């Protein structure tokens, strides 16, 4: 099976996120990491390779030249090669799931893929749309929020999905799209020898503008701002004081 894994480069979630000075977008200065859900997808693909269920794992990312580093991280985890779709469009806001799905459709078709593994959402836009749109465009089955993936004897996949009501098991044929949830696996640490080896693995670069895909954003961000600062509470001495304060502030 040939597996395509999407990996997105995002701001490290342990950093405090700030709006830019103009309050039109997030300030992207700071350490970047692979989107944690994408990392889980990569780990799952590598485990499939180790179980001999996948023959080749291709890591795909979209973005400016720094996206290649995220692909390298996937290669260090064990992916065989990478595809970098080069663009200077902002991938956290302008390049939206519809466009991303179109790009992945292109890569899917060019590479005769059997399975696409994506993170269920990215931690910058929290859209949770790309996998679903892609499956619909490709007209293939989808299983989202996967917390377990098993292989049926007939070549189908049995995916356990985490849904509001609990866990749901679905059986899907390949080719298909699966989006990965938190409890699917624990991503491995990259071993130093593997990181060094990954430098020699191939990354194919495609220029987005040459792909003849409409990637115009359909939604426009009007304003980005910090949440309101929580004001401190006020200590009161007794119930009467509490009542009068509540009336004062027109709460009751």
């Amino acid at each position, binding site marked *: 099976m040939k597996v395509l894994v999407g990996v997105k480069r995002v701001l*490290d*979630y*342990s950093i405090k996120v700030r709006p830019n000075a103009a309050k039109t977008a997030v300030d992207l*200065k*700071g*350490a*970047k*990491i*692979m989107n*944690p859900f994408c990392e889980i997808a990569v780990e799952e693909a590598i485990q499939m390779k180790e179980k001999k269920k996948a023959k080749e794992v291709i890591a795909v990312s979209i973005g400016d030249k*720094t996206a290649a*580093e995220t692909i390298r*991280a996937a290669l260090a985890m064990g992916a065989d090669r990478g595809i970098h779709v080069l663009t200077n469009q902002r991938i956290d806001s302008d390049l939206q799931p519809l466009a991303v799905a179109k790009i992945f459709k292109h890569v899917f078709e060019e590479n005769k893929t059997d399975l696409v593994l994506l993170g269920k959402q990215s931690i910058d836009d929290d859209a949770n749309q790309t996998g679903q749109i892609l499956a619909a465009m490709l007209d293939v089955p989808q299983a989202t929020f996967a917390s377990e993936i098993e292989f049926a004897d007939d070549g189908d996949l049995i995916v356990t999905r985490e849904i509001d009501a609990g866990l749901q098991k679905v059986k899907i044929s390949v080719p298909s799209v699966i989006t990965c949830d938190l409890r699917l696996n624990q991503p*491995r*640490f*990259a*071993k*130093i*020898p593997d*990181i*060094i080896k990954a430098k020699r693995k191939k990354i194919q670069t495609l220029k987005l503008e040459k792909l003849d895909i409409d990637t115009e954003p359909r939604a426009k961000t009007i304003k980005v701002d910090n949440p309101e600062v929580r004001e401190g509470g006020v200590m009161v001495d007794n119930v009467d004081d509490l009542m009068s304060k509540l009336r004062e502030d027109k709460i009751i």
Partner: protein
Amino acid sequence: MLRYNKILGFQKSSSRRPTLHGLLKLSQCGYSKLNSDDVTHFKSILSKPEISVVEDQDDIASYNSDWWNLMRGKSQMVLRPSSTEEVSQVLKYCNSRHLPVVPQGGNTGLVGGSVPLNDEIIISLNRMNQIIGFDSSFSIVKTQAGVVLQRLIDYLQPFGYMPPVDLGARGSCQIGGNLATNAGGIKLLKYNSLHANTIGLKVVLPDGTILDDMRALRKDNTGYHLKHLFIGSEGTLGIITETAILCPKISAASNVALFALNSFDHVQEVLTASKEFLSENLTAIEYFDKECNLIMKDNTKIFNPLGYAHNYYLLIEISNFDDTSDVETNTKAIEQKFFKFFEQVSDYVQDGVIAQDKFQFNSIWELRERIVEGFVSQGLAFTYDFSLPIDKFPAFVERMSDRLGNHARTGGYGHIGDGNIHVQASIKGHDDLELYQKLETKLEPWVFDLVEEFEGSISAEHGIGSFKSPELHRNKSDEMIKTMGQMKQIFDPNRILNPNKLFQ
């Protein structure tokens, strides 16, 4: 703290002293007993007596027991002053009444120095938790002594600075206590000790005299630097109420790698290489052996990405201080440094991982920082903190392991860059108190003899407290101990401050 108490839950029924030497003949020295007049007086000199004078036994319980939950003080009262002036009033009164007291910070001490041995009054600094301010031109932060270290870390972070000291107990320990014990920790290798970084402090002497050295000028050679007497004095010469500390800048970027090795000669080669090649960028180097790794596997959910087959592990943290570049460039620079370093030491290192994000960074550090909890979960544990020649680390652990035979699991870990090893041994049989006591007589004073044989220190950073006071002579000459006694006599002639700690 609550989390630790849960782990140690099974030890709650123990009421014995942790060591034979801990069964001190408490010289009563003509101490008075707390009476109702005293209580009335305290209520009159402390603000908000309803919270600053604690008499309820349930509330006092946690102040009376140490972090190991092995010591049980019998204090009848905890006082929680809110200012230096109040501390002064309390001590003045206790001194005149010959009432013994124990100053207490975060109560995270590991050598029985911060809880009463009898019914001494506990003076807790936990209400004095104001951060006074940060002077960014000299990077000096001024705080009251009761500020929890984690709070200080959080306060300084937006300024781009950090405290020079950091340790696993950061969520509970207080900066005053850190000073009183001259706490070491994981940052000492790069940023030096608290003696080097304390610019000023305010301390109250046992007779109530306030020594105010808080002008805190970066350079001030005007007379004896008295503050250094109190740093590391373990609350026996005075109570520190305010501190002024020099803070280093938070590095532009940092990362951590975990290496697995099989021979200790190789560990030493990597240690030497790290100081040579990483030099200014090396911000921490920590060590743990196979048994510690297995203890973590058996008792915690923290897993080692390098597995459990190797004999030794080194945690190496590198930081980049180039603030003219952005974080991404610096992060890459650090990764490059690690790769180049790995190439230098590839003959010695079997395997290694580098953290790819903050989560992995914290995971690797947790693997080292929570070893003490691992041993405690495994069973009643002996814990030692020694300075030893680095090449003797494994030999020491082996000798101790042989001594305990099949009855305990023994491991060594710690701040290898500083020559500081923590040795822990958990008894097999979990909470078998009889076995623990039997093994204890085998270990002490034998283990201290061993430290002398290896020409080390019986306490690298944890201090003396009450556990090690009989052993002080092993690292300090008679003349030095006599001189220390003379200082104690000058400052505390009535011996009311933390009696029977440090000295016998």
